[in-house]
Every structure is written in C-alpha cells, then in structure tokens.
C-alpha cells in the first residue's frame, strides 16, 4: 500500500484530496463544506488543470467508494471524525502480545466495557465489515473502532492489557 493521497485546504470552500495514479494521471475529490463532493479528472496535457469535474451527493459518493474498494471505504470511515463532533474513528493494530489473540471478539466485551464499537476488522488487506462476536482475532489484525476519545483509549488498553 504505497498509495499517497495529498490533502489540500481550500479556504472558504472545503478540502481537496489528490491521488496520482501509477500511470501518472491525477484524480481529485473536492469535499465542500456542505457535504457535496466533486470528482475531478486531470488533463493529460496540462497536469495542473482539471479537465472535468462531476458533482456527487453524499449517497452517490458513498456508493462509488464502495464499488472502488475496501481501502476507500476505510478512508470514508476515518473521515467521520471531521463530520461528527465528539465521535472519532481509529484503526488499532492488535498488539502481538494481546490477551485476546486467537480469542473471539465477543470475549473482549469491548462495547460493554468502553462504550466504543468495533465496526470492522482489516485482515491481510481485506476488510471484514460489521464483524460478529464469534469472529476470532488473529495476529496482524487491524481493528476499526468508532467512539468517544476515552472509549477509543479504553479499547486500546483493553486489547493490550485485558480488562482493568
């Protein structure tokens, strides 16, 4: 995953994310303050200029992201923190010495203990969305958690040290 996405501030308008593909083409997503998004494609002759841009509403952008793949879905999850005050998303790598290694997600009782929700697990580059309590945690798993700041810290501690 050597993909580099550049974030650029557009004062008074919103934020822009740029991606340069392996083939040298640039794609950008302008996220307006009001939630509207523009998908921009760059000119091959003039790499500074946007040849065409397509406005997408929230649902359309989400659907497109789903089609494009799992890693895009993750970045959408992480953008939650910008939109909802007080709610954060974090990707926590499962510590190699975690007491929950090879045990089920249900064993952690994470939601009851920390009030934070585990919404996905990233394993070997693929995403397991909405994992069930029966899902077994493996070495190298990355756990995607949504919750308050304290809740996320709680999950980190829980996964590292077990219940307090």
């Amino acid at each position, binding site marked *: 995953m050597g993909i580099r996405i550049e974030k650029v501030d557009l004062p008074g308008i919103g934020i822009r994310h740029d991606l340069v593909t392996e083939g040298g083409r640039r794609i950008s997503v302008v996220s307006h303050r009001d939630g509207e998004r523009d998908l921009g494609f760059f000119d091959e002759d003039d790499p500074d200029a*946007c040849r*065409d841009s397509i406005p997408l509403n929230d649902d359309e952008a989400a659907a497109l992201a789903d089609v494009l793949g799992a890693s895009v879905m993750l970045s959408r999850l992480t953008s939650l923190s910008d939109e909802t005050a007080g709610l954060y998303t974090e990707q926590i790598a499962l510590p190699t010495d975690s007491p929950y290694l090879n045990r089920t997600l249900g064993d952690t009782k994470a939601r009851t203990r920390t009030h934070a929700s585990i919404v996905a697990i990233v394993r070997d580059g693929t995403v397991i969305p909405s994992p069930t309590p029966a899902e077994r945690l493996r070495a190298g798993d990355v756990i995607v958690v949504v919750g308050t700041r304290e809740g996320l810290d709680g999950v980190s501690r829980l996964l590292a040290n077990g219940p307090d």
Partner: protein
Amino acid sequence: MHETTLLLIEVGALLLGMSLLGRLAGILGISAIPFYLLLGLCFGDGGFVPFEASEEFFQIGSELGVILLLALLGLEYTADELFGSLKSSRTAGIVDALLNAVPGAALALLLGWGPIAAVALAGVTWVSSSGVIAKLMRDLGRLSNRETPGVLAILVIEDLAMAFYLPILSALVIGVSLWQGVVSVAVAVAVVSLILFIALRFGGFISKLFPADQYEPLLLGVLGLTMLVSGLAAEVNVSAAVGAFLVGIALSGRVAENASQVLTPLRDLFAAMFFVFFGLTTNAVDLVDMLLPAAALALVTILTKLATGVFAARRAGVGTLGQWRAGFALAPRGEFSIVIAGLAVGAGVAPQLAPLATAYVLFTIFAGTFLARLPDADWFREAVRRRRVAKTG
C-alpha cells in the same frame, strides 16, 4: 403622493430591476455587482430619473449590507484556514500587497488628492473580490486545479489584512492632527488584535451562546451580536465592518454553519442594496470624467495582479498555463473596493474617489471575468504550448 407610497414604489421598482439584472448577469456568466452599480447610477444624482424617497431606506440597507458581507466572510473561514494561509502564502501575500497597492496610491497622488486618498485608493486596487473570484473558480470548474489553493490563500490573506486596514483607514479619514492620528491608528490596531485573539481563542465559548438548531433565535442572536459589536467597533473608530468580520471569525462549528445558512439570503438582499446605494449616491456625470483614469488604473493593476498570480503559482510549482489562470483569476475587484471608497467618501475625502472606484470596479469585473476564461481557449493553450516548445527546443 404620500411619502410611504412613493417609497414602496421606488424600492419595489429598484428591487425588481435588480432581479432582472441579476438574471441577465447569470445568463452572461458574470457577477451582478457591476449591474447593481449601473442601476444605482441611472437613478441617483445626475442619473436619468433621480429617486428621492428611497435613498434613506437604501442607505440603512447598505450599512446592513456591509456588515453582513463581512460577517459572512468571517463565518466562511476557520482559524486554522486563516493561519494556515498566512503560513503557506505569506510571501505571495506581501508581493500582492506591494504590487497592487502602489499603483492606486501613485494615481491618487498624481491627481493631487492627498495622502489619505492615496491610502484609500491603494486599498481599492489591492483587494481582489473574494466573492466574485470564488464563484468564478467554481463556475469554471477549477476547484481541483493545482493553482487554486494558492489563489484562495491570497484571498484569505487579503481579507484578513482588511481587518487591520479598514480601522486604520477609518482612523486616518477622521482627519485629526498627526499625533492624534497615530494614537487612533494604534488604538484601532490594538482593539482588532485583541478581538481577533479573543475570537480565535474563545470562539467555542461564544458559539455556545447560540442554539445551533433553532433557526429563528439563531438568526436573531447572530444578527443582533453582529450589529451590536459593529456598532461598538464604530464607536471606538474601528470600522463597523471589521467588528462584523471578527464576530464571523469567532463563531465556529455547527453554529457557524447554520448561521451562514440563515444569514445568506439576508446578505444577498442587503449587499445588493449596498451596491445600488453606492451607485445612487455617485454622480453619474462625474463618472464620465473618471473613465480614463479608471481605465488606465484597471489596465495597470490587472497586469500587477497577473504578476502576483504568476508569482504565487510558480512558487507552488504550477506550469505556465496554470500561472496564467491564477494571474487572470485575481483581476476582479469588488465589494471591498467599494466598501473602502464608501468609507473614504463618506468621511469627505476626495469625492471623486466614488466615481473612480465605481468605474474601476466595473472595468476590472468585466475584464477579469473575460480574462479568466482566456487560458481555457484553444488558441491560448496552443500559443503557450508553442512558446514552450520553442523555448525548450
């Protein structure tokens, strides 16, 4: 005819006329500001049919218009954006100020209007219209372009600079002795710095005063606070407009989002009245004398803005075409130039400044809107490509 009846008829006719002109501007793809100015000229002193009854009404409306313009400008920017732009584009901001303020100041001195008018005209030529330019970039689909962040950062710096420039100008135009002038400028700068500090530091606290989701109390509360702070700011000779800008900066989060939503229609109404009023109070006959100096000034300062844009884009590593785009996009002047001219003329500094500023804004908006599209034309792209090939080959 009864006074109120006449007022209704005049105001109604003007608003209706503004609506039609706004539509025309939309079809032509340019800002409606020059049309509003021209409409005001037609019905003001020296115009075809001078309107009498509505002038006072439009005067109050125009004062509200300035306040709302600035308040919403403040609402648009977050503290991070202000400081981020300052950090990333400081040099471009300084180049912008020097290149574009000097021609205005020089012309005022050349015309023998005195040093205070020179400061005012320097401001008129310095500040681009962030409203016109942001809309232009959106309409031309340039938000994703690489030169765009640099252009926007210059606009942010100009807007922030206005927060200091306007109170300094207000202090100067009061026209007291040199020493008192220095004192009032110092007081103005200190007050603005203090308010800016409070606004950025404790903005979250101020936002808590307002209910974000109840639109009516939010509208009344934000409008009330803005007018109150503007009034107080005017009382201590910091311009009312700056007070409004600072209130806008202080509000953040959902309160800012929803406040700008409820205030935008009000801003559109009163800002339009501001431009019409400026036209109403400007003598159309004087305008004719000022056409030549205004055209010369517009020509020079469009070139200096072009240089500014090229400089900023080149520093950001943008190619030749992008440099042209950035340069031409910065050309339109608008609301601030008129606000500055209004401030100076209102205080009795060089009355010819009003017709000059009107003509100047008309020229730069029309020319700027046209020039901004130039780099998209095929022949222009072809010419740039040929020159590049000739250079490298």
